[in-house]
């Protein structure tokens, strides 16, 4: 009975739903039995495994293990799961670390692997001495300590943070042979806990002339950005905790501004001062760095939003498929506008598409994991994902993006930031040998 039902359902759901081996997403997520049964050959059918080695106990099963550490770190066998560093020798310039998306799953970036960009090293801040002042166009300027902020009503929310320069290698006119960490590693997602900025502004009062606030860090370059008061009164928060523990030093310890969905640089770390003003300060990062040049020579100002985006993390560049058969395509989608509505996946370079399964919960301005079952025939394939958000924004194709935003005449160094706010479709080409490479399609 059970077998025949599984076989019938499996027979239907494992029908291809788009070209080059994409299988109905309903074959996943809670229908593991069916998928397992349908993988064929292996599970449940080959009862006679003649000649298999008898199972033996390994040493770790025969002796007492290691003592329990105060703060546990990953297994030594996971030593390759690390960030990549743009400035490993701490030269006098900024320093980036990138999240290894191809080695992670789910939607939460572990704190040790959250991307960071710091413009003057990572400051060592004594939390008892740190102060946050809010002043300028307020009714009464106030000073807060970490201890007093910790007594305010808190909220927790998942939110991605993405550098406005993430994915910049894709402005290159040819696909740079780099992995998902190098291309998209300046985006991460965590649960942030802290105090809403609007709560503190209730206490300072707001002079109606205030249209912007300037946020400034306690780091050596006093990194500073201007943010519209609209965002302050919407979902801006002073984050004190990251995935349940205090912020990591590189992520802004002991407190940072969190502006869900807005470019990473605006989420000022080591936050020590907020000044309400009538006009933006036109700091270097807003007047120059995050004003992307357009093909007509003009430039966008106050881009703010990290627009809808997705990319496949597995399989992806640098990985090798071990042979034809069933695989799960898995990736990340997110939008600074709100929740992801759907993700479509193609295995034939965009000729045909099928809808991917979205892992619940699908949260606003947070990573959403999508999955798609795929049977690789062993022939060439081009894997793509394309996301839509609930506001109706759709991730552009590369051709659409280049038409609107342009591309470089020749490749730039992979660590350079030739332009900002790139969000088009990423393509991974699978060769007949199973090697996966970055391609344009």
């Amino acid at each position, binding site marked *: 009975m059970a077998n025949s039902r599984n076989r019938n359902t499996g027979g239907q759901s494992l029908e291809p739903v788009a070209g080059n081996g994409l299988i109905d997403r309903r074959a996943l997520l809670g229908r593991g039995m069916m998928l397992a049964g349908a993988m064929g050959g292996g599970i449940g059918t080959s009862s006679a495994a003649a000649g298999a080695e008898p199972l033996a106990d390994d040493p770790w099963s025969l002796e007492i293990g290691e003592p329990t550490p105060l703060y546990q770190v990953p297994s030594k066998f996971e030593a390759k799961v690390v960030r990549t560093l743009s400035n490993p020798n701490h030269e*006098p*310039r900024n320093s980036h670390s990138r999240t290894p998306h191809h080695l992670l799953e789910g939607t939460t970036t572990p704190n040790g692997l959250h991307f960071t960009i710091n413009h003057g090293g990572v400051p060592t801040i004594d939390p008892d001495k740190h102060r946050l002042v809010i002043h300028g166009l307020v009714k009464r300027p106030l000073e*807060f300590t970490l201890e007093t902020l910790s007594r305010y009503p808190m909220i927790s929310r998942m939110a991605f943070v993405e550098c406005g320069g993430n994915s910049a290698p894709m402005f290159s006119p040819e696909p740079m042979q780099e992995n998902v960490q190098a291309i998209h590693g300046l985006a991460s997602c965590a649960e942030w806990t802290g105090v809403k900025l609007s709560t503190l502004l209730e*206490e300072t009062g707001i002079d109606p002339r205030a249209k912007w606030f*300037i946020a400034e860090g306690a780091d*050596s*370059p006093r990194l500073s950005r201007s943010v519209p008061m609209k965002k302050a009164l919407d979902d801006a928060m002073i984050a004190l905790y990251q995935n349940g523990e205090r912020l990591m030093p590189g992520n802004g310890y002991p407190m940072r501004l969190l502006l869900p969905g807005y470019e990473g640089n605006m989420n000022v770390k080591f936050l020590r001062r907020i000044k309400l003003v009538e006009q933006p300060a036109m700091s*270097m990062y807003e007047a120059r760095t995050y004003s992307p*040049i357009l093909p007509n020579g003009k*430039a966008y100002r106050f881009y703010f939003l990290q627009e809808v985006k997705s990319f496949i993390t597995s399989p992806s560049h640098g990985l090798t498929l071990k042979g034809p058969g069933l695989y799960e395509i898995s990736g990340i989608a997110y939008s600074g506008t709100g929740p992801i509505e759907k993700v479509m996946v193609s295995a034939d370079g965009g000729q045909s598409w099928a809808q991917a399964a979205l892992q619940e919960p699908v949260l606003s301005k947070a990573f959403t994991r999508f999955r798609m079952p795929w049977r690789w025939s062993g022939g060439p394939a081009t894997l793509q994902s394309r996301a839509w958000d609930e506001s109706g924004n759709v991730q552009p194709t590369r051709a659409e993006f280049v038409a609107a935003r342009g591309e470089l005449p020749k490749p730039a160094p992979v660590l350079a930031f030739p332009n900002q706010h790139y969000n088009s479709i990423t393509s991974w080409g699978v060769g007949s040998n199973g090697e996966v490479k970055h391609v344009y399609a």
Partner: protein
Amino acid sequence: MFTPKRAAFAASLLLAMMAGASLAETPNFGKPIDEAAIANWDISILPDGTGLPKGGGTPAQGAPIYAEKCSACHGDNGKGAQAAALVDNRPNIEIAGISASQKTIKGFWPYSTTIFDFIRRAMPFQAPHSLTDDEVYALTAYILAENKLIGANDVMDAQSLPKVKMPNRDNFIIRFPDRI
């Protein structure tokens, strides 16, 4: 994600919490502080010149400071080295291509006040906040003069600096006006 049911619960909880206190009261743990006490930290400068400090400087005063404290990274006369070039000597500057290499001070930066602001808050990289305001004005004047945006003898101070019109000032498009 808030369901209506949870939102209603949250609202009733909030009302219950506020019942014992006056309406919209916050914990009031913020300590009052006056602007005079904040002044040392308040280095914000607006493009109209608001916040610029007293003092001033000339290109001639800036040249030796530049040579001593800036040229190791930014190259002789601002031509660039491991850090960005600060002087753009192209005869006809126009934005050619979308690369950030086009974003020179002369060719791209919309406001002169940003130069003063960035030097004062972030430079020199390894000794930030070590320059006097006069030195920052002098370096700003030096960079503007080398870019032929001011005369060789012009004094930069709180009055004159905001009046320096940068060539690319009106070449920007607000990306999402409804978010401001």
